[in-house]
């Protein structure tokens, strides 16, 4: 089971700033463990962010993104009380969805 992410969203002058901190190992597949075996790649490859039911960001990620990724972006529109929903899917098919309210 994937761990929850932390989402913060604020609206100022008609622009919504969304900040998301995700909880993920993001293994590149290049590293070896103590006994010399390759640690299999395990990373988030799809991210989707909805603002009030409308998709505002879609991303395709690879193994070069760091562990515990942090993403911040601004969207035109939105208002306080709107719902932000973020969903990621990793290459093992695991999924996690969390939401927050715009303040």
């Amino acid at each position, binding site marked *: 089971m994937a761990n929850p992410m932390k989402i913060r969203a604020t609206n100022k002058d008609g622009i919504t700033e969304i*900040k998301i*901190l995700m909880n993920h190992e993001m293994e590149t597949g290049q590293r070896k463990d103590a006994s010399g075996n390759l640690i299999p790649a395990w990373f988030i490859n799809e991210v989707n962010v909805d603002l009030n039911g409308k998709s505002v960001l879609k991303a395709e990620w690879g193994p070069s993104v*760091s562990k*515990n990724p942090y993403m911040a972006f601004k969207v035109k529109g939105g208002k306080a009380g709107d719902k932000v929903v973020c969903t990621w899917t990793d290459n093992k098919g695991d999924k996690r969805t969390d939401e927050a309210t715009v303040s």
Partner: protein
Amino acid sequence: MRAPHIKASLFVVIALAFSVSSQAQQDSTSAGIEAYREALQDGNPADLYVDSGAEIWKKKAGPKEASLEKCDLGLGPGKVKGAYAQLPRYFKDTNKVQDLESRLLTCMEKLQGVDTTEIVKAAFSSPKKADLVALSAYISAESKGMKVKVSLAHPKERQMYDLGRRLFYYEAGPYDFACATCHGQDGKRIRLQDLPYIPSAEGAAKGWTTWPAYRVSSGQMWSMQWRINDCFRQQRFPEPIYASDVTVAISSFMAGNSNGSVMQTPGIKR
């Protein structure tokens, strides 16, 4: 007679110009590192550990099926807010000066009935220690913004602080190294990173008030014990036993020197 004189002063001018430019370069680099650190502050992954630490605090575990919620961190059973800013301190029940992690081990033994021998022996990156690292993130976060207020009034607290100071200057190991070799002079750096001068209030606070911290380069959350352990490893000292008196002593020295500074925990580091 005049010519060599001119040459000499020219040389001085050139040397001066060179030292100024290298100084400027160093300043801009450390300003760059500072800007990078500031950018990291927003969205510190240590927050993820703070959340999981809070859950571990409340979770029933061990043979006694008890949580740590009644653990006395110095301000009374279950009081977490502000406790970290006053550690290490003397505890009557154990008759010892303890830091956060050694105190947590005591609580795990007493409240939960956990045998902590294996936890003490385990590597810092192993899952056995993961709970303690997360707990230290959570408990230190509950002191964020508070002033360090470490008592040195009790004779045992004073003794611990003095032992820490002796340890700080104690040279040993194959490299004949001491903490003071790197942290015993003001205004020094290693590679391009400034080295805090630990015996000063400002220098001690730079270290003490920013650990535990998330390390971006390794993607790991480090507790204070982990940080100290690695300092000894870097000096090629024998590895100190987890939560042993020697590790508490060095913490007492740093914490005592930082009294009055504001806790910024959990921190974030490169």
